[in-house]
C-alpha cells in the first residue's frame, strides 16, 4: 500500500445559506505523508477533510488533485479513499467481517476471496477472532479498530480520519493513537487526520496544519508549530504559552517585573511569549525578572509554579523540578533565554 500525493488548490466552501465554512486554502500532502489538521471546533478542518474525500465539493475555482490528476468532479465512491468517522459508522446489519469485506463486495470480489482478505486485515488489527461478532457486541475501541480495518481493506489511495478517537475514553485514546501511529508508519499510506487534540496531532502528523476560522494559521512539523508558532493563535492553541507585556528600548525588554536583554528593534508596545519549560526560577536577588509565587501544583514528575504577573494579567507558569517546595507569596527570580522569547 503506497500513498499518493494530494494537492488542495484554492478550495473554499460556502454553504447554501451563505455561511462561509472555509476560505480558499491550498496545501500539499506528500506521498506517504501523514498530515494532521488541528483546530478548535468550527475552524473548517472537517470541511477541508470532506472536500479531499469528495463528500463536499469546493466552491468554484477550487481543485483537488490526486497524484496530479484532477479528482474534483469525482464523488467519493469513485476516489478510492478510506474513511474513518468519529461515530465509527459501522453497518449494524452486517457482522464484523462483513463490514470489513463490504468494500470488496462492492468491487465485485467473490465471497470466499473477499472474506479471506477481510480476515487478513482483521488479523492485522488484532481482531482475528471477532469476525463473526455483531457490531453491538464490541467495545468502543474494538469498533474503531474494525472501522480502520474496513477502510484499509480496499487498499485506499489515502486514509482520511475525522476525529476517530474523540468518542473514546482517555486511556483507550492513547492506546489507539499509538496503534494508528504504528499503522501509518508501517503502511506508508498518505493520511489526513482531523483532530482538536494537539497531542494526537503531534504524535500522528508528520506535519500539522493548524486552522483558525476557516483559514490556515500555520503549516509545519510538530516542532515548527511548537517552537516557532506563526501567530498568537497558534502559540496559545498549541501547548501552554506565557505572555509578558512591555516595551523594547535600546535592546532591553522592559516589563513591570524587570528587564531582559533582547536582540530586537525598539517598540513602544511588545508582547513576549515563552513556554513554561523555558522559564527558570532563580533566587530573587539580582534576577532580571522578579515575581511572587501565586500557587504551586505538585504533579509528581514535575511541578507547575504560577507567578503573580500583576493585576489583570494572567499568571505566568513555570515548570520546574519536583524537589523544591514553593510557598504562596514567596518572592522568586525568573530567567528566560533570549532565544526562548518569541515576539508575535
Amino acid at each position, binding site marked *: 500500500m503506497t500513498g499518493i500525493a494530494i494537492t488542495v488548490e484554492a478550495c473554499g466552501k460556502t454553504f447554501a445559506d451563505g455561511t462561509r465554512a472555509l476560505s480558499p486554502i491550498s496545501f500539499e500532502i506528500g506521498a506517504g505523508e501523514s498530515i494532521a489538521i488541528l483546530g478548535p471546533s468550527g475552524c473548517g478542518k472537517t470541511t477541508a477533510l470532506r472536500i479531499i474525500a469528495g463528500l463536499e465539493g469546493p466552491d468554484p475555482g477550487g481543485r483537488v488533485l490526486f497524484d496530479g490528476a484532477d479528482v474534483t468532479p469525482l464523488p467519493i465512491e469513485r476516489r478510492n*479513499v478510506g474513511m474513518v468517522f468519529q461515530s465509527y459508522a459501522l453497518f449494524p446489519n452486517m457482522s464484523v467481517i462483513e463490514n470489513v469485506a463490504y468494500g470488496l463486495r462492492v468491487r465485485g470480489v467473490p465471497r470466499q476471496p473477499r472474506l479471506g482478505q477481510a480476515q487478513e486485515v482483521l488479523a492485522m488489527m488484532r481482531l482475528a477472532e471477532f469476525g463473526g461478532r455483531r457490531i453491538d457486541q464490541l467495545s468502543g475501541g474494538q469498533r474503531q479498530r474494525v472501522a480502520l480495518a474496513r477502510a484499509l481493506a480496499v487498499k485506499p489511495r489515502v486514509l482520511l480520519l475525522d476525529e476517530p478517537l474523540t468518542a473514546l475514553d482517555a486511556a483507550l485514546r492513547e492506546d489507539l493513537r499509538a496503534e494508528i501511529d504504528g499503522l501509518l508508519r508501517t503502511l506508508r499510506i498518505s493520511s489526513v487526520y482531523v483532530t482538536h487534540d494537539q497531542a494526537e496531532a503531534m504524535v500522528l502528523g508528520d506535519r500539522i496544519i493548524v486552522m483558525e476560522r476557516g483559514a490556515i494559521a500555520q503549516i509545519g512539523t510538530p516542532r515548527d508549530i511548537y517552537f516557532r508558532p506563526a501567530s498568537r493563535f497558534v502559540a496559545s492553541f498549541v501547548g501552554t504559552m506565557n505572555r509578558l507585556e512591555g516595551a523594547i528600548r535600546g535592546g532591553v525588554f522592559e516589563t513591570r517585573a524587570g528587564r531582559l536583554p533582547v536582540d530586537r528593534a525598539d517598540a513602544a508596545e511588545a508582547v513576549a511569549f515563552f513556554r513554561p519549560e523555558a522559564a527558570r526560577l532563580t533566587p530573587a536577588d539580582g534576577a532580571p525578572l522578579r515575581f511572587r509565587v501565586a500557587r504551586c501544583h505538585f504533579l509528581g514528575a514535575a511541578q507547575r509554579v504560577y507567578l503573580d504577573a500583576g493585576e489583570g494579567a494572567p499568571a505566568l507558569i513555570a515548570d520546574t523540578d519536583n524537589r523544591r517546595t514553593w510557598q504562596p507569596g514567596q518572592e522568586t527570580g525568573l530567567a528566560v533565554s533570549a532565544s526562548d522569547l518569541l515576539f508575535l
Partner: protein
Amino acid sequence: MTQQSRFAVILVLPLAIFVAAFFLLPMAQLAMRSLFSGDGTLTYAAILATPRYLATLGATLGVAALTTILTLVLATVVALFLARTRFPGRGFVIALLTFPLAFPGVVVGFLVILLAGRQGLVGTVSQAVTGEKIVFAYSAAGLLVGYLYFSIPRVLLTVMAAAEKLDPALEEAARSLGAGPWRVLAHIVLPALGPALTASGALCFATAMGAFGTAFTLATNIDVLPMLIYTEFTLNANVAVASALSILLGAITWLALTIARSASGSGVAAAG
C-alpha cells in the same frame, strides 16, 4: 400476598374488569356463535368452500397487500427526501401530507368519489380530453386510492422518524467504500429502516384489512371482508357466518399486528 402485590392487584382490577366485560366476553360469544349456531365448525369449512366468500377474502387480502406495498414504496421515498432535505415550506408539506389523518374513513371515501366518481374530477377531465369518462371510485382501484390516502401519512411519519435517526456517516462510509446511491439504499438505508418498514407495513396491512368506513362508501363493484360481515349480519341475519368471518378477519389482522409489534418492539394498533 404482600402489601405491595395486593396494591398492584387493586391497580390492575379496573382494567381486568373492563377487559373481561367489554372484550373477552363478546369475543368468547363471537367464537361460540361461529362454532355452535348454524352448522357449527362446518361454518368455517363452508366459508372456505363458498366461492363468493373466498373471492371476497382474496380481494380483501389483495387490496390490503397492494395498499401496503404501494404505501411503503411511496412513503419511503417521500420520508427519505423529507428527512434529509431542508427547504422553505418543509413543515407545511409535512402538515399537508399528514392531513388525511384528520379524516374518518367515510370522508376519505367521499373524497375518492369527488376525485374519481361519476361526477368526479378524473371523469370530467378524461371526458374532455379523450371523450371517454374514466370512473374508478367504486372498484378495487378506488378502494386502493382511499386506503393509500389514509395509509401513507401513518407510514410516512414512522419511516421519517426512523430515517432522521440514521447516522449520515453510515451512508458516507458506504460511499467511501465505493458504493453508489442504489447500493447504499439497498445495503445500508433499507436494512436500517427495516424494523420501521415492517412495523408500519404490518400496521398498514391490518388497517386496510379491517377498514369499514371507506369500503362502505365505495365498495359497490367489489366486496371486501368488513362489508361482507356487515351484510351477512344486518341483511341476511346470518350470525354464524358473520361471526366466523369476524374471527377470520380478527385472526389475520392480529397476526399482522403481532409481526408489527415484534418488529417495532412497542405496542401498535390498527385504526380506521
